[in-house]
């Protein structure tokens, strides 16, 4: 009896082994995005064993592996560049920065574990990260509970900084971009009549549209028509026909690049020649692929432009290129800004204890960051300028910087 069981189980096992192979293969592909992390590239010293007296320990949590590894890597490189520059200039209050970077594989629960380790094992004085709001939201309650400062470079969800008074961000929150584009429309383009075409399924888009409307109307403009679509739609002709009937001078379309590209095409087909306007959801090479020539002459707001002529930006770009050989993207710029703002606050603070640095961070005014002049408001969100880019032959040309 037993031997029969043995045989039958063995035959089953070989079948199961196939599944084991599948499971292992899947787990291998899941980690195949894994790469040499960039902190060896420029050989920054990460001496964790130095006496606590002469180093300021920073912790970084980022998605160095996983599906969003490019975001994590860019931010990581920006952070390391800032640390290198600050340390070369003598550090802060005579102390050098050291960064411990932990990977979270793009998972909220891993980010929570990593931040717990940084705080309790590595005894860091501040946390940098995460890129995505989903990870920052898992980390923020832990940082707050332990009264450790956390600065997120690019989490735009307003709820992140609502987690507590130790959580800061150096990027603008989504609604701000609506205000920026309204200012740009009235002050630079001198427009009076604008139509809105918003994505009702997306609270990012709805937020931008509402703030655009409010600011534009306050500045004396008129919203001639307010139409909507849902992400995933392909045909926008009925909305565009309704918009054409009102003859606006521009259309505000605060959506993502896929729908925006299609809307651009169909607007031109219907004979609507007016420019489109939008937010950072447009920032993708796909916009040209989908929209083609139809997008030329349109404007959108973004965090930073490599064509910005200001010396802070150009200096950052040349140093970044020297270290990594590529032009930095917006995420690298924001990772860089997160560190320099922290360093600036530490320099201004009377002592390096958390409460003093926190107060100094709150008092950040007109700081010249790569991603604009940065002010921290009482909600610990960055209030800063945004850049407006114009689409010309598929290339995003820097137009102007709009201050809040």
């Amino acid at each position, binding site marked *: 009896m037993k031997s029969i069981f043995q045989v*039958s189980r063995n035959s*089953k096992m070989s079948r199961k082994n196939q599944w084991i192979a599948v499971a*292992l293969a899947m*787990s291998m592909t899941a980690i195949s995005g894994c790469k040499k992390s960039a902190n060896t590239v420029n050989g920054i010293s990460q001496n964790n064993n130095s006496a606590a007296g002469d180093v300021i320990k920073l912790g970084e949590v980022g998605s160095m592996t996983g599906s969003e590894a490019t975001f994590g890597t860019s931010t990581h490189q920006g952070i390391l560049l800032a640390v290198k520059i600050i340390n070369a200039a003598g550090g802060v209050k005579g102390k050098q920065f050291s960064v411990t970077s932990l990977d979270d594989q*793009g*998972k909220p629960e891993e980010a*929570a*574990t990593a931040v717990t380790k940084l705080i309790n094992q590595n005894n860091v004085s501040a946390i940098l990260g995460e890129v995505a709001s989903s990870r920052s939201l898992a980390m923020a309650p832990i940082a707050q509970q332990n009264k450790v400062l956390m600065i997120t470079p690019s989490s735009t969800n307003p709820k992140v900084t609502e987690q507590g008074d130790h959580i800061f961000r150096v990027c603008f929150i989504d609604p701000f971009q609506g205000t920026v584009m309204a200012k740009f429309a009235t002050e630079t383009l001198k427009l009076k009549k604008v139509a809105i075409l918003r994505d009702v399924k997306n609270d990012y888009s709805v937020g931008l549209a509402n703030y655009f409307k409010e600011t534009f109307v306050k500045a004396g403009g008129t919203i001639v028509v307010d139409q909507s679509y849902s992400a995933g739609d392909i045909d926008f002709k009925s909305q565009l026909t309704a918009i054409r009937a009102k003859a606006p001078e521009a259309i505000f379309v605060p959506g993502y690049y896929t729908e925006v590209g299609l809307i651009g095409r169909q607007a031109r087909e219907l004979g609507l020649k007016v420019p489109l306007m939008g937010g950072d959801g447009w920032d993708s090479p796909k916009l040209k692929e989908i929209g083609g020539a139809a997008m030329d002459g349109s404007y959108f707001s973004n965090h930073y432009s490599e064509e910005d002529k200001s010396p802070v930006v150009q200096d950052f770009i040349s140093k970044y290129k020297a270290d990594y050989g590529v032009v930095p993207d917006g995420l690298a710029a924001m990772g860089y800004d997160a560190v320099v703002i922290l360093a600036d606050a530490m320099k201004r603070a009377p002592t390096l204890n958390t409460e003093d640095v926190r107060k100094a961070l709150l008092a950040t005014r007109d700081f010249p960051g790569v991603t604009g002049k940065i002010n921290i408001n009482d909600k610990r969100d960055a209030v800063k300028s945004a850049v407006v880019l114009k689409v010309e032959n598929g290339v995003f040309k820097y137009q102007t910087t709009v201050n809040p």
Partner: protein
Amino acid sequence: MTKTPSTHPKGQSGLRTLWVWLAPLAVILILNQFIGDQMDPYFYTILMYAGINIILAVSLNLVNGFTGQFSMGHAGFMSVGGYLAAFITTHVVSANPEIMNNPVQGNLLLFGTLLLGGTGAAIAGYIVGLPSLRLKGDYLAIVTLGFGEIIRVIILNVDAIGGARGMPNIPSLTSFGWVYSLVIVTTFAVWRLVNSAHGRAFLSVREDEIAAESMGVNTTKTKVRAFVIGAFFAGVAGGLFAHYLRYLNPATFDFNRSFEIIIMVVLGGMGSVTGSIVAAVLLTVLKEALRPLQELTRLDFRMVIYSLMLIILMLTKPNGLFGTREISDFLPEGLRKKITGSNKPKEGAA
């Protein structure tokens, strides 16, 4: 005792061995008074995730190991339980914030929502299982994988629970006591179940479906039963996870999560509760134990080593760490009888 080996242990043996399970339960509740404050939070976090993973692995083992059905949707059931429990507590607590100051009410709330979350997951398991468990092997695996993804995409599109932005501000209710009491409860339930008449039916389905059917076992019903019970405990684990991390995001519950649990079951041994426990702890700890290596070498190959170790383990121990054996099989005869309540030699021990 010269009782003949029984393949059908008597019902009361469960009660006779209850002390074996109640003793650690008491220890855990006593430890709970100290461990939260005394322990380093980082190790505490690992300990909590290890416990949650044990519940997931043991409950999946009931389906994948003991009943021989390859389910890939465990993370989906976990998310149903997690979201349901978190949704209720978040709303109850925001309406009556004073609950958080009252430990009795807080624990009662957690207990109620965990039960509801588990039940919700069990219902989802029933809906998924009833039509799909008529399928076998690869087909079943694909269907469960699909259902897991469907659950995730549904969550992504429901605004009331945060959609893609996730669900923050879940009250922190999960404690060491809760996680490890439920580890004991899950282990006890699965252990007793597979050693009962129903458990024999599970095993018979795994070993030979046609033979089982000809002996009068309703195979579909048996499979659905295992599936629903497994889903229930996955839902409970999801609830514990939600109230520990205090933030839920649908991305947490993708198929990679299901694979992680499957790996625990396979590594421990399909059909070994002990194996699932050991593998769940091992893999949870291993992931974190490799972190210093990453800091030391400044290379990001933590997950490469993790996967490499899995491959080596599977190559050297293709039946998993424990095969189908349990910890009791390694104990002396007399002690084993006391704990398991039967002197039945385990299959696989020979």
